[in-house]
């Protein structure tokens, strides 16, 4: 992973830890069903559709 030069050791550790945790979660929950589309922008109309 490339870091910009002025990031300190603590910042680099935080970034790496954040990305490791996020990617572990994202990869664990693979959703491949074609019905699983990204959520729409949340507006009440969209929620109404969910409720029906």
């Amino acid at each position: 992973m490339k870091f910009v030069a002025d990031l300190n050791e603590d910042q680099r550790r935080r970034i790496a830890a954040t990305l490791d945790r996020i990617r572990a979660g994202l990869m664990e929950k693979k959703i491949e069903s074609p019905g699983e589309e990204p959520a729409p922008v949340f507006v009440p109309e969209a929620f109404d559709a969910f409720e029906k």
Partner: protein
Amino acid sequence: MHLKSDTMSQKIAALAAGEYSALSLAEHSLERAKKLASLNAFVTFDDSLVLKQAEVASQRIASGRPISPIDGIPIAVKDNYLTADYPTTACSDARPIAPENIDATIVANLRAAGAIIFGKTNMHEWAYGATNTTSNIGATKNPYNQEHITGGSSGGSAVAVASGMVGAALGSDTGGSVRIPSSACGIYGFKPTYGRASRHGILPLSWSLDAPGPMARSLADIEVLLPFFMGQDPHDPSTFNAKPFRAIVKTGTPRVLNLYGEGFERSDEVDLVIRQAIEKTELVAEDYELTDLWRYFSGWETILHCEATSYHLQALEKNPEGFSAVTRAHLEAGRRLSALELLEAQKLRASLMRSLYYEMPDWDVLVLPTLPIPAPKHGEDCQEFGGRKVTTQDSMTWFCWFGNMSGLPCLTIPVGVSELGLPIGMMLMGKAGRDEELLAVARIFDQRINGCS
């Protein structure tokens, strides 16, 4: 009449009855904010601006022509809302914004209704954290015990309300930032359904998760304020179909679900207080295990970091030193996430919504603690509870983030105190777009737990 402990609704009644004037109320607020300056609630307030507004409000009320119920009520504003008369800094040195005669829509609504826009409150830098310990003016202090944090990111607003400086305050909530400090400081805080309240003029953290919300000393106060938050705003497209707020007086017996499972751990102390509070309601709370929570959390974090980095990208490249070290690390993490990872996170968001809507027994309200622990001490990096050891930051958002990821309306109400005398809050979550129903149910909880009418 107790100026420092009255709820906003009691202040409204006192003003109407002529027990005190808007001017004397404003003078009291200024005095109290100065007396309790060590709590570090405010970035700025200006005596002359406050008194000028109060004098005009006093004249209106005295002549029997108040503009609205909140005419003359001092209201504090989180420092990420644009205000025409105060600069906006988001408690960061990165991008301070001078007053430009622009009010955020909600501020404009309140000002037009006669509220006294009292000042700007301390917050976690750019709302990018839930402890309120990262701020360019220093951390806020918990009014119940100054050795403890307030939680955040709307920590200054919570302090200003809890300590009786103002009648109510404005917050914003991306992963619990209204609810967390409200719970830690023993007040009420509400996050509306995403898309029902205007975000216009509120500096974003993550625009598909952000929601503005009121913070106050009673549920009645929250309901008085919500008409000024909710409804269509042509400046915020997400509200294009938003209904105005109309309080519901009565509701039937609610179906209550008590969520548990991995990711819902809490301290024994908090668990006991919440269970006792639920018992007081005499409602049947069915246990339901919600799974995969930590994976959904990864999705929330991905969306949060990607959107925050997108918003701050230019500033990050031009003036990276303007951000605190921790905030900059968050933004740099967002810069390293890919479009595919963001889309994967959006799929997780859809999956979480389907779980909440279709895969659970029918429900009216979900019940959780707002926080798994009482407010931690300043300087503590980690917290241990329920067999988990997590960062203090993660302990604050522990139960709150999925209300933002799903867009659901959420409310925290105070229900007890810890052994050390620190407040413990209960979170109630409702169905999307049914904010009024959630508040009606919350009234039942509040009446039976706290005896509030």
